[in-house]
């Protein structure tokens, strides 16, 4: 490198910040006009090359400090700078600023280059109120691919940009892309000690292992495009989280094809990315040309050219295996035990049907409608009725074993645990009866109807009431442990799992309460009442429920974070979801039984019954059973 002058900058040449004052002349040739940009490692000046006296020739002077205390380090830096400047000088491309000169003065290294007037993409995206348009971003990206292709194919040695990002991409006054700032930066890279907060955002993962190769530039361009199309700065996000934020989920104006193309460039696995910048460029150019018109060939079927939507994995409708008609609506949810399905109807009867065939086995008449759902224990099936009684019926014969009168309708479904039956009544009491003979052990009084079914653990019974409270009562004694107050009736039957009690309230909110202490751990507000009871998928760690706001919700059970929400065509009811390994089933006021993918919430199929489905579906073997207000009970294949 030429150390042409041993001229040292005089004190008056530098301002207090250390930048050169306007008017300072370097190498007796370059007059500093103004400081344009001060970066972490370099200062950029606009300067005038005074060699050309008769005209005003502008140039850019980039100044880098080289003032390490160790003279050997300074030498090494100067040598690296020297090599870099020479490589840059060998490049010739319209999008790469030309290098004119380089020299050193007073511990500062200078590069004199073509001056580019314009803005960099960082400024442009910052000034833009929203994401940039697809057409413009694709156009710029194609120009960048062009430069990358040139750099990567450079002889004798391919040149890797390594630090491609929006601030290194400028748009000149003619609206053309110019890439700046490459290469020189790595000369001055110092190891950073201690903890830092924040990451670079654009470089690919392998670059952190020290592997910098051309396909890393492709990733960085993809990262840049992602930022421009979503206005999400990757430096502010967790590193390598692009795939968790697909472009279309933030900016739906972007086409699926472009989203896929950019995601391919952003593959963390380097071999899955585009192999070359040319490949990336071709993929981008394909986005630009309009679809060619369809030219029919003789005899060939007409094929529509619209962009195809992905066909659903599971086609459309479910067919019933059998259906059984009662004489009135079925609001009760079925219960299956040992191949027999039990269900109540508003026609006053408790039915026992063969689960596989739907064949009628027996029915037991109560004195009023049945909304409650049956439960089975040993040889007995228990059911509550609007006639104020709870019945225990022999499963084999359909004849009565015992009954227990209360002073209000029994709409709550009984829960059986430890040889006891627990259920609530409209008479405000929660009953604990001996399952064998119906003898009352205790009754706990709440302040209003109890229509939800209790959840029972070893020591405690949990249930909700129309007074808005969820109670925790000791199993042995019937004494209150705690009560949790919500703002509206709780129809939802609470679910106990991992020390938390889950339930929804008509106050629009779904709660997760610590079962021991009765304290809310998290809650999730929906847009309308919740009458449905929750269900849990243990392997997925998700809790499911529906709301009158038409949503089926899947939340992470430990944090309440919404994993998905699927919209139905009508309000959610008291129908509660049933969960299998892969699917969630639930009924809706729009008359359908929905089957959704348990992981994604995508609708697999919907079965139409014609009337509101308030009954909860039940799973058994490979079948799902549900009742509808259209008087029928259906058995479908899962």
């Amino acid at each position, binding site marked *: 490198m030429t150390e042409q002058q041993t001229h040292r900058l005089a004190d008056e040449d530098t301002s207090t910040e250390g930048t050169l004052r306007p008017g300072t002349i370097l190498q007796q040739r370059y007059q500093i006009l103004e400081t344009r940009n001060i970066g972490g490692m370099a200062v950029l000046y606009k300067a005038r090359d005074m060699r050309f006296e008769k005209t005003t020739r502008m140039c850019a002077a980039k100044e880098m400090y080289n003032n390490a205390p160790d003279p050997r380090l300074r030498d090494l830096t100067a040598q690296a700078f020297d090599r870099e400047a020479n490589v840059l000088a060998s490049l010739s491309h319209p999008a790469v600023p030309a290098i004119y000169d380089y020299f050193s003065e007073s511990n500062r290294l200078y590069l004199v280059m073509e001056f580019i007037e314009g803005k960099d993409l960082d400024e442009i995206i910052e000034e833009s109120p929203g994401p940039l348009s697809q057409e413009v971003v694709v156009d710029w990206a194609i120009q960048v691919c062009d430069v990358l292709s040139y750099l990567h194919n450079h002889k004798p040695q391919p040149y890797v940009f390594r630090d491609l990002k929006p601030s290194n991409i400028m748009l000149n006054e003619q609206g053309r892309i110019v890439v700046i700032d490459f290469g020189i930066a790595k000369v001055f890279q110092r190891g950073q000690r201690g903890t830092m907060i924040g990451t670079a955002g654009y470089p690919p993962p392998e670059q952190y292992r020290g592997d910098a190769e051309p396909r890393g530039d492709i990733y960085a361009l993809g990262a840049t495009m992602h930022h421009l199309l979503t206005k999400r700065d990757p430096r*502010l996000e*967790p*590193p390598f989280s692009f795939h968790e934020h697909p472009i279309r989920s933030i900016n739906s104006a972007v086409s699926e094809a472009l989203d896929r193309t950019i995601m391919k460039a952003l593959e963390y696995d380097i071999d899955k990315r585009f192999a070359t910048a040319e490949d990336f460029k071709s993929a981008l150019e394909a986005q630009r040309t309009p679809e060619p018109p369809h030219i029919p060939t003789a005899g060939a079927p007409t094929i529509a050219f619209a962009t195809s939507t992905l066909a659903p994995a599971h086609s459309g409708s479910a067919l019933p295996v059998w259906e059984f008609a009662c004489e009135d609506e079925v609001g009760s949810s079925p219960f299956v035990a040992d191949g027999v399905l039990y269900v109540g109807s508003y026609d006053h009867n408790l039915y026992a049907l063969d689960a596989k065939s739907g064949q009628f086995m027996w029915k037991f008449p109560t004195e009023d409608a049945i909304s409650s759902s049956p439960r089975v224990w040993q040889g007995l099936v228990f059911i509550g009725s609007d006639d104020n009684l709870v019945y225990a019926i022999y499963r084999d014969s359909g004849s009565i074993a015992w009954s227990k009168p209360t002073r209000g309708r029994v709409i709550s479904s009984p829960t059986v645990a430890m040889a006891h039956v627990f259920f609530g009544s409209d008479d405000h009491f929660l009953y604990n009866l001996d399952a064998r003979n119906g003898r009352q052990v205790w009754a706990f009084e709440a302040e209003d109807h109890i229509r939800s079914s209790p959840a029972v653990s070893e020591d405690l019974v949990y249930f909700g009431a129309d007074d808005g409270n969820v109670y925790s009562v000791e199993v042995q004694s019937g004494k209150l442990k705690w009560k949790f*107050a919500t703002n509206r009736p709780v129809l939802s039957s609470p679910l106990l799992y991992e*020390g938390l009690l889950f339930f929804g309230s008509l106050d629009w909110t779904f709660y*997760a309460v610590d079962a021991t*202490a009765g*304290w809310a751990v998290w809650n999730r507000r929906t847009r309308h009442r919740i009458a449905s009871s929750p269900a849990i998928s243990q392997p997925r760690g998700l809790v499911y429920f529906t709301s009158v706001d038409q949503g089926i919700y899947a939340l992470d059970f430990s944090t309440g974070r919404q994993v998905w929400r699927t919209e139905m065509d009508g309000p959610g009811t008291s129908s509660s979801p049933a969960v299998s390994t892969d699917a969630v089933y639930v009924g809706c006021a729009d008359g359908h039984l929905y089957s959704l993918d348990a992981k994604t919430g995508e609708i697999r199929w919907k079965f139409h019954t014609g009337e509101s489905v308030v009954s909860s579906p039940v799973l058994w073997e490979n079948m799902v059973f549900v009742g509808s207000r259209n008087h029928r009970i259906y058995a479908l294949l899962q």
Partner: protein
Amino acid sequence: MSWIEKILGRTQPLPPAPLPLDDSKESKSLFPVVGAVTDKGPVADHNEDALFTLSAALSQENDLLPLGLYIVADGISGKEQGAAASSLAVRLVADWVLSKIFHPFLLDLGHSANQQPIHQVLREAIIAANGRIHDAYANAGTTLTCAFVLGTNAFIAHVGDSRAYLVNKSTIRQLTTDHSLVNRLIELGQLTPEEAKTHPQRSVLYRALGRAGNLEIDTYLQSLPAHSSLLLCSDGLWQAVPQEAILAAINAASSPQAACRQLAAQAKENGGEDNITVILVQVKS
């Protein structure tokens, strides 16, 4: 220093928690015993870690309900501001949790939809601390990992690369995710944990308190079975002492306090240069 300041300020090795209440009751309630140690380490000029512990128990009609709050914060910055940031974080979060959980609990106001859920209180405490640190200290930040223990449930809120572990007789399991660049690279299979130990950017975090913008906070719920322990620590411990050795030290120690002292000593023996902070909450019956 008033007693409040003593309790809420950054402290040196704490005396062990008082012995549990009447153990002879037949009730199955489990009670935590706590150890805590902080040590600036052999190399650093000062200790930029901060910690807070508070253990309480309330008994009503034979039901003993323990409650506790345990916080570790590791300050980030070259100058003393790191220490100020971690201290501020710990005090603000403790104060927030005391007023929004402990006080309502004592006044029996917790059993209602109008009481903010626990995870929400922890999140907001950390967000408030984040705002204050950002305003007060331009170049500093801090990690924060806190656990609110109620009965045998631990509610954990976490930002950064301090850690919470669940320890049993034979197993130790990391509960929190490190918000560090190298951890993300490990998740992607681009780096092995061995390589991460010596990676030049192993301390780079992508999430910490003290930055502008929305702060995302991880929350966890972990039940603490009998004879298990909850371990909270700064990276000064886990970077220097492998998990199996941590497990062994805890099982061999005679008390949680002894375990914490042993862990800090081991970190230094292994050549750890960073500040070391350890809190161990042992659930006993």
